[in-house]
């Protein structure tokens, strides 16, 4: 199956699943799907740098938190509407992303990983200690829930599980459109060239720094979008929005789904949100089993679950041929 066929198929399945959710109308399922959609936006954003550009942004949740705090401060302290605060949150995250980029984009490999992570950690402690603005560990409470009247559809409210899911899925659609637009453009090809061989990319005239800034800006903007929707949905923003646990979850979504693929982060987001819920039957063994599943996933699907081709094993009468190893590149 070609990439386009698979993506169309994926979108058809997703539309079907979303329609089924609205018809079944179960608050618990819709809550899981809402969080899945919000985190899918983040996974798409992280995948731009970690998957397409090849730089492991281990502080990506910084933009999620910046988006959340910007939305909380603007709606609570300045009386803005959530929609206006959302736009401002995206712009704020992009601005912070560009500033962070000035420091981190000079670094590569493990240095990049730790430097981005350091920014996240500093933000976490600033959020705890800058009590005048962030209200410290207690956080900002009681954000107004997003609600609007739409022509032909009626009133959409985040307090209603179906309304929240609709808002999150709209956000995800916007993120999918943005990612599709940039990855399938010259910028996407430039990122792949930089990821595969930065020196070679530079030698054919690709400005690695400029394209890296672009990737960081778009991915930061998506983080801000996710953070703003999340803040409107849960109605509270605390320093825990910068928590290491969120970072690990989003990273898992990208890698378990498939780094550098289009559908991988989305599939990964819904998997990572759903599997721990399914494991609730295992009670206190839930998290240890989840950890073992992660190890199994990386051992048996190192390229992510979207790279698995189960239908190949199902084809009858054909011997399974192992994939041809890629030819080693060497000096000619």
């Amino acid at each position, binding site marked *: 199956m070609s990439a386009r066929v698979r993506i169309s198929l994926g979108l058809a399945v997703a539309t079907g699943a979303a329609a089924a959710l609205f018809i079944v109308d179960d608050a618990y399922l819709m809550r899981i799907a809402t969080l899945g959609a919000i985190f899918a936006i983040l996974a798409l954003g992280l995948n731009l740098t*970690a998957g397409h550009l*090849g730089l*492991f942004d281990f502080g990506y949740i910084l933009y999620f938190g910046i988006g959340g705090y910007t939305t909380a401060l603007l709606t609570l302290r300045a009386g803005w509407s959530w929609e206006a605060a959302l736009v401002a949150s995206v712009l704020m995250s992009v601005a912070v992303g560009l500033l962070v980029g000035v*420091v981190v984009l*000079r*670094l590569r*490999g*493990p*240095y990049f*990983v*730790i*430097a981005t*992570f*350091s*920014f996240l*950690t*500093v933000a*976490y*402690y*600033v959020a*705890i*200690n800058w009590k005048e603005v962030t209200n410290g560990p207690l956080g900002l409470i009681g954000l107004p829930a997003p609600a609007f009247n739409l022509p032909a559809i009626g009133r959409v409210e985040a307090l209603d599980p179906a309304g929240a899911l609709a808002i999150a899925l709209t956000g995800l659609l916007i993120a999918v459109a943005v990612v599709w637009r940039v990855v399938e453009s010259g910028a996407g090809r430039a990122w792949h060239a930089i*990821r595969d061989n930065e020196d070679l990319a530079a030698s054919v005239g690709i400005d690695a720094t400029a394209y890296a800034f672009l990737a960081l800006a778009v991915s930061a903007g998506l983080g801000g979008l996710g953070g703003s929707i999340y803040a409107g949905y849960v109605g509270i923003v605390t320093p825990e929005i910068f928590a*290491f646990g969120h970072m*690990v979850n989003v*990273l*898992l979504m990208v*890698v*378990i789904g498939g*780094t550098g693929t289009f559908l991988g982060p989305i599939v990964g987001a819904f998997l990572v949100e759903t599997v721990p819920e399914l494991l609730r039957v295992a009670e*206190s*063994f839930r*998290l*240890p089993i*989840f*950890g*073992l*599943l*992660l*190890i199994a*996933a*990386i*051992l048996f699907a*190192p*390229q992510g679950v979207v790279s698995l081709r189960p239908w190949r094993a199902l084809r009858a009468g054909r011997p399974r041929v192992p994939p041809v190893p890629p030819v080693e590149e060497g000096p000619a």
Partner: protein
Amino acid sequence: METLVQQVLDGLMIGAAYALMATGLTIIFGLMDVVNFAHGEFYMLAAFLLFQLSAVMGVPYFVALPVAVLSVGALGVVVQRTLVRRLRGGSRLNYLYATSIATIGLSIVLQNGAQLVWGAVPKSIPQPFPTEPILLAGVALSPVRLFILLTSIVVIAVLGIGLMRTLAGRMVRATFQDREAAALIGLPVDRIDALAFGGGTMLAALAGVLLGSAFQVYPTMGGLATLKAFTVVILGGMGSFPGAIAGGFLLGVSESMAAGYISAGLKDAIGFAVVVAVLMIRPTGLLPAVRRLR
């Protein structure tokens, strides 16, 4: 003045443990390019094993301590043989993600496993040291802290001599510098990896039993420890032993100073701010390794 000396000594004690952890991470990263997110969980596990042996089963402290450290080292060897070794192949970037996810998975298993076995309530390890502080030129030194500092310094010195003077040490350094060339002259790089992973986890385990004796032991204690160890490694220069040791003491002392003179709440953020500052001036850390990062 006395408070200053006291702060520095406190910082040196914590810094010694950071240096042990960071040296362990450096060995594992240097040989296998693995960013080991489960490092802090080995540190936590060793502290719990010491608690189990000495507080629950009544084994004498100085017997239980080496047993706990060696058991965790053996677990490290098992992890390398069954998990880390299988992740090679594919691009460098994929290997970085695969080993990160695998060690994150391992850390979730170990942390929650410890919580199932020992519960979430912090435990104290009964210590054989007198609680009366030793007064030295007006500065109070608690015996347990002195023991931590001296043990760390001795272990780091023995490790340094071992790496420089013994055959096994030379083999490890050769593999560290150039893996392909080492394999080419017939060094058993695969077995050296296992030895190094075991040794690296033993250093984390030692830091765990030492700090566990002075503070409390709880299942989530490894999380922040892993992050601090990373900070130290980057601060000193990735893949550099002198850097890891210097970075450990530097971070310990600056945290202790920050807690004393700036704000106890911001103590844990200081290290990360220092890292950003250092990387802006010296992108390869304070004492970068001679080895080329592939």
